């Protein structure tokens, strides 16, 4: 009854091709955006119940938004184009460090040419986006092997990128402006004069980035390029025979995915951590992003958001609950229990629904259509 879509007819193709053709979905989206853009800032600024401390904003909502954005990027590569990548951590790192360099002025001494390229410090917004662009270029570079290598073998090729950039940002002091300890600080976040400092401002900044880029990604995925990616994923020989160039399709997938991940990396470093070291973008980050995409649902932008929420919030919940309920467990056993429960939840979900939360929700919608009748 709740989800009856009878009577909603599409007159034009544009209507039929909208992101959320069914009215109930559109209402749900509107409510969600309303809460996100107006509700949370209001509650937070007046310190009402959930936001009495800025813990919820700073330690849950902020990382959730940025990791969801990175998960959308990863989903484009793994979910839509079928190229398994374990290098998303490295692309985040490239986004972060190139944004840092651009924001603090780049000086490339070309001794043998007798001159040096010197770029003055750019505004933060420009350096974040250009950081994403640099990540896209690296993505294309490490996408080239995907033309010959397929499947799990490709995962290892992207691991080469992961470990190489881990090493590069630790070892080449040029990237960290010769900081003695190798850890770098984020520059002042001023966007057209407004300095972003309080958790609420940081939250709104990330929310803006995530919404805009998610819509752009959704458009790309529904458009012709998205179909090319999915064709390459499902059967690349047939795709080639109907005129899709695998080179163009795969490299655009790598480029777009790495751009989004690069921007997410820059946001993670500038807005969330404040000062960071390469270990923040290690192999664990790549695996975490892969979990989010698979659990959330391969090939679904909404799935990436749900996957990000699950993988980020579940461990924190498993940690907080025992202490909240006052169970007499030592932190050691709590962490071990958290590992066990988290692992078995992943297996349980994969068995129940191999296509992740996204499919679970669409099945739920179908059930709602029939509710309360059984079939």
């Amino acid at each position: 009854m709740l989800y009856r879509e009878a009577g909603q007819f599409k007159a034009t193709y544009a209507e039929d091709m909208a992101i959320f053709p069914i009215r109930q979905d559109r209402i749900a989206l509107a409510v969600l955006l309303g809460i996100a853009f107006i509700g949370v800032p209001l509650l937070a600024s007046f310190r009402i119940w959930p936001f009495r401390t800025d813990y919820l904003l700073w330690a849950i909502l902020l990382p959730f938004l940025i990791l969801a954005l990175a998960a959308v990027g990863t989903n484009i590569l793994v979910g839509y184009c079928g190229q398994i990548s374990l290098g998303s951590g490295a692309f985040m790192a490239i986004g972060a460090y190139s944004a840092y360099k651009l924001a603090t002025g780049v000086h490339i001494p070309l001794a043998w040419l007798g001159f040096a390229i010197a770029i003055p410090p750019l505004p933060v917004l420009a350096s974040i986006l250009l950081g994403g662009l640099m990540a896209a270029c690296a993505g294309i570079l490490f996408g080239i092997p995907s033309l010959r290598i397929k499947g799990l073998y490709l995962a290892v090729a992207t691991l080469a990128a992961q470990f190489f950039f881990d090493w590069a940002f630790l070892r080449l002091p040029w990237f960290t402006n010769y900081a003695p300890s190798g850890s770098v600080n984020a520059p002042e976040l001023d966007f057209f004069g407004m300095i972003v400092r309080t958790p609420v401002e940081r939250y709104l900044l990330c929310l803006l980035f995530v919404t805009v880029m998610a819509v752009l990604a959704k458009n790309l995925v529904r458009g012709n390029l998205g179909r090319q990616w999915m064709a390459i994923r499902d059967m690349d020989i047939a795709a080639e025979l109907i005129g899709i160039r695998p080179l163009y399709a795969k490299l655009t997938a790598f480029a777009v995915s790495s751009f989004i991940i690069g921007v997410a990396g820059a946001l993670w470093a500038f807005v969330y951590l404040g000062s960071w070291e390469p270990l923040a973008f290690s192999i664990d980050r790549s695996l975490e992003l892969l979990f989010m995409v698979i659990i959330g649902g391969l090939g679904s932008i909404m799935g990436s958001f749900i996957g990000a929420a699950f993988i980020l919030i579940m461990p924190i919940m498993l940690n907080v609950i025992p202490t909240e309920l006052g169970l007499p467990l030592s932190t050691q056993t709590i962490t071990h229990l958290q590992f066990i429960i988290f692992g078995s939840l992943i297996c349980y979900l994969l068995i129940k629904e191999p296509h992740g939360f996204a499919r679970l929700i669409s099945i739920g919608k179908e059930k709602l259509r029939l509710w309360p009748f059984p079939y």
Partner: protein
Amino acid sequence: MASIARNVLMLAAALAAAALSAPAAAQNEQFIPILSYRTGPYAVNGAPYANGVVDYYNLINERDGGINGVKILTEECETGYATDKGVECYERLKSKGPTGAAFINPLSTGITFALTEKTATDKIPIITMGYGRADSKNGAVFAYNFPLLGTYWSAADLAIQQIAKELGGFDKLKGRKISLLYHDSPYGKEPIPMLQVLAQKYGFEFTPIPVTHPGVEQKSQWLAIRQNRPDYVLVWGWGVMNSTAIKEAAAVAYPRDKMIGVWWSGAEPDVTPAGDQATGYKALMLQHGAGKFPVHADIEKYIYAKGKGSTEPGKIDEVLYNRGMVNAMLGVEAIRKAQEKFGKKPLTGEQVRWGLENLILTDARIKELGFEGMLKPVSISCSDHEGARYGRVQQWNGKAWKVISDWSTADESLIEPLVADVSAKYAAEKKIKPRDCAKET
């Protein structure tokens, strides 16, 4: 199928409600969060340290009934030595208890870097005893950072002093080869600037050798060391990297008594896996070493006798357990000092900061607390958040640590210019106006 979706949603809702319900606000209790790691690759060193901290806080509650009557309320949060988990733990615990966290002790240089800016804005002091940012000794710029009892630059100077003593004088250092095997992270890289300054001053050849996290594989580094034949190898490792270094040194037959570890590479879990091959290995001491001191008697009497200990009674004389206790003691004494000025009630982070900055422990007070023999007098001031730069060296004889050197202090004249230079750069980058310490005392 939808039934699963429904269960998951209900579960999530229940969890969310429980997590966000405000815990019962205790009235007369001083909240101190404990960031620790008891799992993951660095648990072998993190766990004993955390046990020392927890036991000492219990001791204060059991023996003295809290600090001047104000009981200590603690909550432990597992960070697994990961920066983002550390930030999440900090955010979760920083405003618990009646007046929020008294101070934060992250026990990881990575987390320290991430929290330095946050703690300054939240006005909560961050104690990095024997680690953290070496330049944060300069209280004028780093008002809320307290690298008590020693930074990595002091440790580097103490290590070189020990080598000079063994070679018979600083002039003997000329032309010698000293390598640094370090954990490839901010923790491992922090001493390098100081060692380069020392290398220039005394004319020895200094070669840094990085070991990638987690340091499980060091064969090629040690083959290179075997060819390079350095006179001494300094070890700046953490977790599995320490024991692997000693085992690989034995594998290439490099003399263990020519290896000197920093005070974080000189504890029982680092030497026991290598067994008798570790004999002769030396390590710096953050003033105290292993063994039992008067305070241990109270620990056994008030804690372990009542079965409230967090580890086996046999392990309470280990190096890292003792360091946990010293760290906890310094925190408690800072609160006691702050209570003298702000009254015997739960204090805010800012008030405890004042206590820390004016913390003075004389020999008599140390004896009263039962720590004599472990610590020498400490006096923190606005311009010197380190308070003391003493160090000794201990050697593992296969079964226990033996102290083989008397007290020595790091040479301020070398460290001061480096601190001033690096902290000035940080102040410029972060647009912080350094406080004028002279005026403030």
